[in-house]
């Protein structure tokens, strides 16, 4: 242990602790901008500087480790003065469009400026005029707002290991670029949107389709249907004044109806459907009926799929051919639902609400037109839906709980846990067990695949067959399992991969922040809902039985293959 004093208070912390972390022990939060918990410290904004007795200059507290006998002053006049000026410098050439900025009320730079009492910006800085990067269907980057904190680069490199953005140039020309400035849409970007979460300002945002959805809702000739992913119900409340960990499934359905959607379904229905297809596929691969390699990888995370197509195309055959729940729902809304109701599918506008920026990309993939139309027309993120609810003046907190339309809205506990890392695996095992043994899996909670460990593994006894499974969330974690598989050394039968840390509850479209604790809580909310639901196995869902009886036939059948399964494309490396 290292003993030091901070603002005169004695404190002992383990060696290697940063001054910033040590200060927390004496109830001091040191302001910072480029530092973010969960990422390597970078030490470039200098906002976290402190005074250390005996040092000639101020010391960045995020990156400097404590040493024995150190005397630290975190808020001396010299420190406060320097901090103010640093923020003043950042504000001097920052575009002044805070009113209309995506980050209005959620901007870390503005918050800092307020908290450290920047009273005046005395510099008249020349405003930058960089071109926006609008090449991606999911994400827009505005280098003019960028404060060059490097967080996006660190998350993309160190956490996601995608490494498509980096700093270029020096001095005033310094900026975050993609390779050859080709733009995010033309490089290996997975559209995971983790960079959005870590950006302290409005320099990275999703490509919004709020206006397009409003237009469709207001068009009397259109019939607008909506589906919401499992993870929305665990996070939407946070955007609307409720604490983290509030389940808002009923209010969410109620709000969507009031926004004017003609029918409110639920992606959870499609998640149950995914399990039927994917569970059967797994059993087929294990029994040898399907001549495809093991382990089988899940396919419901479009960020992971694009990552695979770029970085691991040799594993393409291992990936389940099942579309993601969003993309299973899409074609059904324009075929099954249209047929049932006699609505011209041409008039159906299929909207989804997703925790995910990659889903915007996925909806636009050329092959996602099996209904004869674009299967999913618009993808809203959790944040976009929250803004629509606010814009419509809906008092979310007082809304009653309302159910989704059962035809494509009824769901089981297995579907709802899709939103948390390990959930797809757990759901699939519940059904696969039944498929293999003809009996129901008694103990439904498969705890080893839950929680926030980067890679989780379990072995499930299926009538004497040891089914080995693994789960990874975050693409950096996924690489471990992928490399093992590539080397032919994977002991697993089934592997779940989610592009985002925490799974979909931490998707790029969720409430801002890179807070793993919050993501864990959202996941727990979904496990709680699962526990409370009477039906917890996908094959028990009456609406699923109905869709097979009335329309699809059987899992992996001809119609399923046409509407619910897909192919992948090897993508070039730039």
């Amino acid at each position, binding site marked *: 242990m290292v003993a030091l004093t901070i603002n005169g208070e004695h404190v002992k912390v383990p060696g290697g602790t940063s001054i910033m972390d040590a200060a927390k022990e004496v109830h001091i939060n040191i302001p910072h901008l480029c530092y973010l918990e969960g990422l390597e410290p970078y*030490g470039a904004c200098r906002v976290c500087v402190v005074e250390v007795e005996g040092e000639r*200059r101020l010391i960045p507290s995020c990156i400097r480790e404590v040493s024995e006998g150190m005397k630290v002053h975190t808020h001396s006049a*010299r420190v406060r003065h320097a901090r103010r000026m640093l923020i003043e410098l950042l504000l001097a050439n920052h575009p002044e469009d805070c009113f209309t900025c995506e980050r209005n009320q959620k901007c870390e730079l503005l918050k800092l400026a307020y908290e450290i009492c920047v009273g005046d910006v005395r510099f008249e*800085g020349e405003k930058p005029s960089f071109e926006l990067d609008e090449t991606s269907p999911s994400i827009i980057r505005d280098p003019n707002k960028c404060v*060059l904190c490097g967080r996006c680069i660190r998350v993309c490199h160190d956490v996601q290991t995608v490494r498509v953005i980096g700093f270029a*140039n*020096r*001095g005033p020309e310094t900026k975050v670029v993609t390779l050859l400035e080709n733009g995010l849409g033309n490089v290996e970007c997975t559209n995971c949107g983790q960079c959005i979460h870590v950006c302290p300002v409005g320099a990275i945002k999703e490509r919004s389709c709020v206006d397009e959805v409003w237009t469709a809702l207001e068009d009397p000739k259109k019939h607008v249907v909506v589906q919401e992913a499992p993870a929305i119900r665990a996070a939407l409340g946070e955007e609307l004044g409720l604490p983290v960990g509030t389940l808002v499934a009923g209010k969410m359905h109620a709000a969507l109806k009031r926004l004017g959607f003609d029918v409110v379904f639920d992606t959870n229905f499609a998640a149950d459907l995914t399990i039927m297809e994917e569970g059967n596929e797994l059993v087929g691969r294990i029994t040898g009926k399907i001549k495809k390699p093991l382990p089988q990888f899940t396919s419901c995370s479009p960020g992971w799929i694009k990552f695979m197509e770029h970085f691991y195309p040799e594993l393409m055959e291992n990936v389940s051919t099942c579309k993601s729940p969003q993309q299973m729902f899409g074609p059904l809304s324009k075929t099954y639902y249209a047929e049932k109701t006699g609505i011209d599918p041409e008039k159906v506008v299929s909207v989804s609400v997703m925790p995910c920026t990659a889903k915007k990309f996925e909806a636009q993939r050329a092959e996602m037109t099996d209904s004869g139309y674009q299967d999913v027309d618009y993808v809203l993120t959790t944040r976009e839906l929250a803004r629509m609810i606010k814009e419509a003046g809906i008092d979310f907190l007082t809304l009653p709980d309302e159910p989704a339309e059962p035809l494509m809205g009824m769901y089981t506990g297995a579907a709802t846990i899709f939103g948390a890392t390990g959930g797809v695996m757990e759901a699939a095992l519940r059904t696969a067990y039944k498929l293999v043994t003809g009996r129901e899996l008694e103990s439904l909670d498969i705890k080893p695949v839950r929680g926030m460990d980067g890679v989780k593994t379990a072995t499930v006894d299926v009538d004497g067959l040891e089914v080995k499974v693994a789960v990874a969330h975050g693409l950096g974690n996924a690489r471990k399992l992928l490399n093992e598989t590539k080397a032919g050394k994977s002991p697993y039968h089934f592997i779940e991969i989610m592009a985002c840390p925490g799974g979909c509850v931490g998707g790029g479209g969720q409430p801002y922040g890179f807070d793993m604790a919050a993501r864990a809580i959202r996941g727990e909310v979904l496990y709680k809902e699962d526990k409370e639901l009477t039906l917890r196995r996908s094959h028990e869902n009456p609406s699923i039985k109905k869709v097979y009886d009335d329309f699809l036939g059987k899992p992996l059948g001809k119609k399923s293959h046409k509407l619910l399964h897909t192919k992948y494309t090897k993508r070039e490396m730039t």
Partner: protein
Amino acid sequence: MERILLKDVDIPNLCEIDVYIDSGGYKALEKALKMTPKEVIEEVKRSRLVGRGGAAFPTGLKWEFTRKEKDEPKFLVCNADEGEPGTFKDRVLMKNNPHLLVEAMVIGGYAIGANKGVIYIRGEYFEEIGRLNKAIKEAREKGYIGEGILGSGFSYELQVYRGAGAYVCGEESALFESLEGGRGCARERPPFPAQYGFMGKPTAINNVETLCNVPAIINNGGEWYSRIGSPASPGTKFFCLSGHVNKPGVYELPTGITLRELIEEYGGGVKGEFKASLPGGVSSSLVTDTDVKLDYKSVADAGSMLGSGAVIVINSSTSIVDVAKSCIEFFVRESCGQCVPCREGTRRANEILGRFAGGKGKVEDIDLLLELGEVMYDTARCGLGQAAMNATISAIKMFKDEFMGRVES
């Protein structure tokens, strides 16, 4: 005047190894290899040689720190980036006497326990790169580089690496980043190069001129060296005299000669009337006293720094505002762009100074510049940002009326 490093430069074909050996070259290496590495370091410590690259850190101590580190392998890196405006001294050495640097690099490697040395050289120094490569090849052929040098147990490889052309890459930690193939951006310290340098390994990094003193120290003893020039920082120093002098150029002179002596006796006097000088180039503060002794301590006592010895002379017909403006312009361009105080501070200062230069200054901006300078010194990550405002601050403090004269009325 006594010259140590340029002692033999007038010998024709000194770049060739035989000529270098005939004039006493590689004797120091032979001697050093018969000493223990610790003895070599002690000798250098006794000489009280300090770094000539800017920071004036005691060379012997730097070597000792690196030697003491447990981690392996260790590296010796020579900083030959020489990107500071008005500095061209290392070039003179490498061009005229490349073997001197090669010999010093082998001795240094032996002293710190490194089996590999790298010379990071400014990209535009084409001729010098060629000469160094040739010298290394010759030295290898003669057994001064390679396995078991001169029958000792010491093996050493030496390589020249061409820099990518940014001034900040001369900053030691940015230099390592650049050597490793990254962007030339300074690292946070600690850890210092002695613990975490090139490839994250213990590294001693020295300037060309610093290293070139070592053979003479080994040959003649540290004691001998310590009696040359100014006692506080002994030896000779290369002064790159430029600006308003009649005979600009590189002069190797004992430390401690006065600015006046340098200008009058070597530089042929001031062109026009003397106003001020930047004794350590654009990163240093102005001095107006020509009696200041040119050694590290005395110049620091006078409120400036000797740096790498780029002495810029400014005459009385030059506007100090313009001097400050051109200094800061350089830093705007050369900031690595990493930390806020330097990236943003330099360009804001440049905008303000631009207004003064155009006669549109604001009174309140004078204090703002001083304040900015303090914060940049206090918070910038590396020497570039810390020193970028030195010229401006000293200009305001010494010639405030010139700034007032440029205030918009």
